[in-house]
């Protein structure tokens, strides 16, 4: 622990700088892998092959510069070099900017799009080493995440404005409406957890999740995803997270079938790369937020290895070893879980079609926000009732059981209502009410000829 002592002996400024650099490298390095993984996984889900050629090396059989054991060998990289090739291409292409654009704002927008993606990570603990992570363990942790993520809208809106292109502007305006709408539900869902854990610090939330499950099962961890209110909050947060990162099915700001490419239509080369990089870093960062707040952060499994190691049973040694491993490899676990969240993003993208604009708004305001608000009220009532119930041993378990029962019943009721609505609509033949009058094709052809 001499290294930790030396590190904590440094001036605050140097400590913060070192932490920030390590963390930025940590979230920056996997971005090409994410891009490759998204393309490969999407193509696999869509019955395509995807990029699998770039990086394959076939060594010469004749050249004298190739050592003997390599001659004629084929190395396959599964297209892993594709992001590198894309990067080189993007950075060496001619840099075009529309002549009528507002140049200063036009160049500022990509930078503003990247800034919040990196800045949000400052409060997220990515391993068990408290001297190194998080970058700043501030009292306002979760509020900081919400505040900085609310700055993400500037990059998109200014890009849309500065491009001097109607489609871009529409993409930017859509983005601002969408991001502002879904921020509220996101704040509400995080607020439920803040109430539950009694702190806004992500580290305190993590510590609360390392407590015994439901207060009674000491060898399991109480991840908030396992509690009824935490589960609801997690679902709400996941939906809002997808909307905040402008990913499908919430990718209206860059709907290619409606807006060419949305807010980034006029951007090419490095500036476009900045937008893409911001998007992927944002995905990973929001993934790390959902991991930290709901899914136990850098713990791979919801098991209290430390507790098991101190029990008197044959597996104690193994458990102690795993606990040590967990301590030292926390960052790797964090990365693996982040990868899993990215995979969930890609899966959602491959599965769901894009929402229509009115569907997006009504879903955000009329379903998600009330759900998150109800959840917040339920957590508050829960806290009050547990305080009134006092220290009775199994009141927590009964509460959890009742909570889960309530969640299941609510889901069943919603499903029945949904089925009934669908049935009624199908009976009326009004599955998709629209105010569009279709033109008679014959009349159109004669008009066109005339």
């Amino acid at each position, binding site marked *: 622990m001499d290294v930790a002592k030396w590190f904590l002996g440094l001036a605050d400024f140097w400590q913060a700088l070192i932490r920030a650099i390590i963390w930025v490298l940590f979230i920056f390095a996997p971005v090409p892998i994410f891009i490759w993984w998204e393309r490969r996984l999407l193509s696999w889900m869509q019955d395509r092959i995807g990029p699998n050629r770039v990086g394959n090396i076939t060594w010469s059989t004749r050249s004298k510069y190739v050592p003997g054991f390599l001659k004629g060998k084929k190395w396959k990289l599964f297209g892993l070099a594709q992001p590198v090739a894309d990067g080189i291409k993007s950075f060496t292409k001619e840099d075009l900017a529309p002549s009528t654009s507002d140049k200063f704002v036009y160049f500022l927008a990509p930078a503003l799009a990247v800034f919040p993606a990196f800045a949000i990570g400052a409060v997220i603990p990515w391993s068990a080493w408290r001297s190194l992570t998080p970058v700043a363990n501030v009292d306002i942790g979760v*509020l900081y995440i*919400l505040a900085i993520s*609310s700055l993400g809208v500037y990059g998109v809106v200014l890009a849309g404005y500065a491009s001097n292109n109607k489609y871009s502007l529409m993409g930017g305006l859509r983005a601002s409406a969408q991001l502002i709408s879904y921020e509220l539900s996101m704040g509400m869902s995080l607020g439920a957890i803040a109430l539950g854990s009694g702190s806004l610090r992500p580290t305190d939330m993590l510590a609360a999740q390392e407590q015994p499950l439901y207060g009674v099962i000491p060898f399991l961890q109480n991840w908030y995803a396992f509690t009824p209110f935490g589960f609801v909050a997690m679902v709400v947060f996941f939906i809002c997270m997808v909307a905040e990162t402008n990913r499908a099915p919430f990718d209206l700001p860059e709907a290619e079938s409606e807006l060419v490419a949305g807010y980034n239509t006029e951007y090419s080369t490095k500036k476009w790369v900045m937008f893409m990089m911001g998007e992927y870093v944002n995905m990973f960062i929001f993934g790390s937020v959902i991991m930290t707040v709901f899914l136990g952060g850098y713990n791979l499994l919801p098991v209290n290895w430390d507790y098991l190691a101190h029990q008197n049973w044959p597996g104690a040694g193994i458990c102690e070893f795993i606990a040590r491993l967990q301590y030292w490899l926390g960052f790797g676990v964090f990365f693996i879980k982040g990868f899993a969240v990215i995979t969930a993003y890609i899966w959602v993208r491959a599965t769901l079609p894009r929402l229509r604009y009115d569907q997006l708004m009504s879903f955000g305001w009329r379903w998600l926000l009330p759900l998150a608000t109800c959840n917040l009220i339920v957590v508050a009532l829960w806290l009050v009732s547990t305080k009134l119930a006092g220290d009775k041993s199994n009141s927590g378990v009964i509460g959890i059981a009742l909570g889960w029962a309530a969640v299941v019943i609510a889901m069943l009721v919603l499903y029945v209502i949904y089925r009934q609505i669908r049935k009624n609509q199908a009976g009326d033949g009004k599955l998709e009410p629209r105010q569009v009058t279709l033109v008679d094709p014959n009349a159109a052809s004669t008009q066109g000829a005339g």
Partner: protein
Amino acid sequence: MNDIQITPELILFCGLAGIAALASLGVVLFQNAVRSALCLVLNFFVLAILYFTLNAQMLGITQIVVYTGAIMVLFLFVIMLLNLGSARLLEEKWDIKKPLGAVFGIALATLIGSQMLPGFLSRTHVNPLSDYGTPQALGRTIFTEYAVPFECISVLLLVGIVGSILLAKRKI
């Protein structure tokens, strides 16, 4: 005045204050409305960081959430939708209001300065309390000492929200 020590805090403050001052100058001096709005965003953001340096975390983060993240987005939204056109159309002709405004502005600045500056001039370094701006401390104060004003403000906000819905949606 000679015994001011150059501390890292002072350097940080000077940098931030300089950026804030330049940004607020930019708000009034830029011809382009979007750039003015952007300068205001920068000013609010730097102001929030200044609050952070004074340990007023909650105030700073509220500044970012409310002003930088919500109100200024709305400003930009409106400016973009209005599409103001060239700045020359907006230039006002000479008016008695201009010198009058300048006189009143200087008077106000002098008044505030005369009250504030004497207290500040002798200060060479900030000495903020470590936990007075945390959400815990603020929440405790709001919900105990200032519970009634807080509830009054929330009722006022509710009235505002209901009123705006009523204006936006004539037929309910």
